[in-house]
């Protein structure tokens, strides 16, 4: 069976990165602590994956303060949304191919 893996986005190979993207695509924005709680990952782990997505310009970061506490909000960029949709399409195609 031949599967076209080239359509898969390298940035989404990691499960957590794909999960972060799913949350950001479904929401206007999401903050760091809520993401951490939802995905049940450690601070460092989440931060490194967020950095990777930011490097790809799939997400944008907005740092604000609530009182004196830093509050970092993440938003999916247009580029990120397109890439996410493409990745989902590729997953769908893969299932369709295997059903044949």
């Amino acid at each position, binding site marked *: 069976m031949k*599967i076209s893996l080239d359509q898969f986005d390298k940035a989404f190979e990691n499960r957590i990165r*794909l999960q972060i993207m799913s949350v950001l695509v*479904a929401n206007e924005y*999401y903050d760091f602590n809520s993401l951490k*709680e939802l*995905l049940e990952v450690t601070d460092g782990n989440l931060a490194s994956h967020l950095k990777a997505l930011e490097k790809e310009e799939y997400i944008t970061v907005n740092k604000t303060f609530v009182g004196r506490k830093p509050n970092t909000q993440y938003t999916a960029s247009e580029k990120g949304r397109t890439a996410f949709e493409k990745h989902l399409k590729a*997953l769908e195609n893969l*299932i369709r191919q295997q059903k044949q």
Partner: protein
Amino acid sequence: MIEKDIYSEISSIRDLMERSTKFISLSGLSGILAGVYALIGAFISFKIVYQNNPDPLLYRDHYVNETLILTKLFVVAMTVLVLSLTTGIWLTIRKAKKKNQNFWNTGSRNLLINMAIPLLTGGLFILILLFRGSYEAIAPACLIFYGLALVAGSHYTFTDVKWLGICEILLGLLTALLPGYGLIFWTIGFGLLHILYGTIMHFKYDR
């Protein structure tokens, strides 16, 4: 990649999208209890309003406007409201804990903010009606604003809440058409509809 992996990947994406936007720990049981409180409250109110009138189904051509009766009704309504909210919050926190979810998350925050706007507007509006003595508009206003709050909040929780909201709005409009039957519609809207809704939710999601 095996097919099973892709399926689990896709279902985990769908699950995350839903859990990140919606608050799905609302307890069905709290709906049933709120309905029961409302029924008890309505029963007491019937007693208060119709103490001199033996037939409650008889159409009233006057509005209740004695201060003592109004105060009693106000106390009953507030008690029902506070009891329902306390039970609702308590049972919802319990359900969230059981499902290992945080009670205070983006979903519940959005749900509360979106419901609070129509609810507070309605609450203030009803207080203004009380002060101005426009008593006949109070029962429909309660139902309509509560229905609007449910519809507004429904985007952040189960979609079923929207249908409950629409039913409350329609009932509120009907109440406005038939002002003498305010208490009966109020009983249907806050009592029976809540019990019906709570039962559906309980069997659909809580088990």
